């Protein structure tokens, strides 16, 4: 009897867990409009002395040296911001699935050594770079924060999957005490963005846009509020294909079966194809379902780099995306 009770209560517990996880999906309804993304600052300077700056970040407080010379950046947002500020880090961690940083950063970061993560950050490699400041990422390196802190003062940035890509440069600027330069660079970016928005205005309403990714023989569509979504749809004013979910509680993407391809009505498709899915793309491209999509009919399928669109987490990434969009939709405006 007691055993039955125990089993029953434990099963209830598991049932509750399952329902909870489902409710996350429900409360964040696919088609409901989420709250607008506000700029979330993660760094706050608490104290400044001649020797150091006391900085508060998501994982605690750190004393940052006034003029760090060798910076190690394990966070893609920080890497982007450092490059935008013209700082050359001593070591960066590669973005996923390759041994190099994102291609749009390749020029600026030429010659900077890169370490591959492969699951955990290799501490000794970081140590060998003799850093005096480390930027790390909460999700990937959070467990190692203590250890990293013993190597050098460590500041953590949380990677926001849902596209606030403007805050990191201000955060990094605060840490490095170049806040005014950071603000200027941000203003430059905003002007460029507004120019692009005006250039796109005539087409924006009439030509919905969507983003697809072919990976491992599946097709995946990203949600409007993840990653580049706010940039494209709120700031540049493009209109999304109605088939793009507004929010997805999973990593921001949803599997698109070939059936659902027939619901796409976009005029422009920005496409990322993983290297192993070329054959799959060819197969899908031959079906009448694909050929009936307006974008395909008018030959407006644009291939873009995955590391830019899915990885670009700072201002430089946004600028690269804007370049891609202009080249596709308003070629006369792009440089």
């Amino acid at each position: 009897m007691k055993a039955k009770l125990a089993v029953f209560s434990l099963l209830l517990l598991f049932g509750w867990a399952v329902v909870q996880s489902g409710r996350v999906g429900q409360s964040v309804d696919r088609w409901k409009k989420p709250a607008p993304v506000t700029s979330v600052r993660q760094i706050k300077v608490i104290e400044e002395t001649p020797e150091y700056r006391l900085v508060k970040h998501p994982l605690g407080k750190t004393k940052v040296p006034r003029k760090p010379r060798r910076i190690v950046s394990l966070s893609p947002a920080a890497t982007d911001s450092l490059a935008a500020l013209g700082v050359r880090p001593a070591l960066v961690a590669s973005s996923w699935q390759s041994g190099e940083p994102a291609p749009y950063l390749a020029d600026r970061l030429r010659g900077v050594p890169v370490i591959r993560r492969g699951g955990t950050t290799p501490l000794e490699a970081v140590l060998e770079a003799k850093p005096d400041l480390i930027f790390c990422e909460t999700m990937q390196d959070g467990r190692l924060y203590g250890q990293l802190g013993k190597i050098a003062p460590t500041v953590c940035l949380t990677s926001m999957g849902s596209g606030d890509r403007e805050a990191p440069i201000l955060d990094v600027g605060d840490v490095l005490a170049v806040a005014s330069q950071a603000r200027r660079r941000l203003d430059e970016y905003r002007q460029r963005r507004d120019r692009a928005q005006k250039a796109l205005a005539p087409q924006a309403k009439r030509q919905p846009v969507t983003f697809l990714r072919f990976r491992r023989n599946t097709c995946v569509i990203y949600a409007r509020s993840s990653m580049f979504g706010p940039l494209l749809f709120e700031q540049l004013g493009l209109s999304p294909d109605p088939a793009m979910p507004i929010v997805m509680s999973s990593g921001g993407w949803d599997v698109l079966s070939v059936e659902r391809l027939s619901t796409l009505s976009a005029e422009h498709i920005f496409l990322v194809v993983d290297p192993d899915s070329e054959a799959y793309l060819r197969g899908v491209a031959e079906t009448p379902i694909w050929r009936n999509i307006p974008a395909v009919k008018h030959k407006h399928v644009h291939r873009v780099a995955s590391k830019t669109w899915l990885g670009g987490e700072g201002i430089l990434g946004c600028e690269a995306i804007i370049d891609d969009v202009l080249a596709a939709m308003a070629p006369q405006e792009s440089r």
Partner: protein
Amino acid sequence: MMREKGTVPIGAKHPSGRSGKGGPSPFPARRLRPVAVLVLLTLVLLATAIVSLDLGSVQLSPRQILAALAGQGETQHELVILQLRLPRLVLSILIGVGLAVSGVILQGITRNDLASPDTVGVNAGSGLGMMFLLVVYPTAVAQSPLLLPLGAVAGAMAMTALVFALAYRQGSVLPSRLLLVGIAVGFGAQAAMLLFSLRMSFSMYSYVVTWMSGTLAAGDWTSILLLLPCSLLLVPLAFSRTRVLNVMSLGDYLAAGLGVSVDRQRLLLLGVATMLTAPCVAIGGHIGFLGLAAPHLARRMVGANHGVLFPAAALCGAILLLVADSLGRHLFAPVEIPAGVLVGILGGIYFLYLLARTKG
């Protein structure tokens, strides 16, 4: 309650010295003196420890290592040795010992040399607990790094409790039923984890996969301080049950006849095994294979007497994990392969060797 077939502990001296299938016994009847084996294992452990202090991307000469250990080296070297490598060394030993001892306990109470912490639902439970937290409360997890290990421990305890409750029937837990229920629950947890994994972002998922492969990368002195009290309490407690386990291997009837209250002891030992494994899994991730392989190896070397089996298995476990961790750090530097993966590979090779030896 009949004793199940095929549960004679491997290596026990058979009256006829033969296996049931005919042909020469695959396990040699002669054996080194157990004490000699223990001494040998300790020496191997020491040697491995010394080598592991030497491995890593930062190259240090032996003199520098010694200086750092004594607290008189340069700061860089001290950092590498005292803060990075030494904690990992100690952690590998602690976790290896914990998992191996709990494996011995589980194999003893189920009288089946294939039982391991995996099959009682600990690993599946901790994985599930972690994934649940990551998917449902991701912001909370990002804020406090302590939440995940706690979730893992809670999941492990809940899962083991479920397994035990399901296997409990008419006042006793049959070993075979315990194992099968554990496996069934493990499958269920795997399916649930699959569901969760598809709902995570890429970086979260790779984090989970790495954790689930058993990584000791975050080994620092705080996690050792967390693990040490558990080990210091529970390992001697397990060792003290030597006589009980020896007697239980004779079968439930005989054991009861010899004055051992089988069910209560079984419950107690199961609890000890879980409490040993849960923190190890919470800190080091899912190092699946160790609790199975270390007792197996030890039994082949020293026999089934738990008095020597416990220390031998503990030493084997420590050595195995230490070797796996060091190799993982070193082989593909600077990319780290988690220790659990290498334990799996070594285990696979051991399996194949077993197969080849018997057929040939």
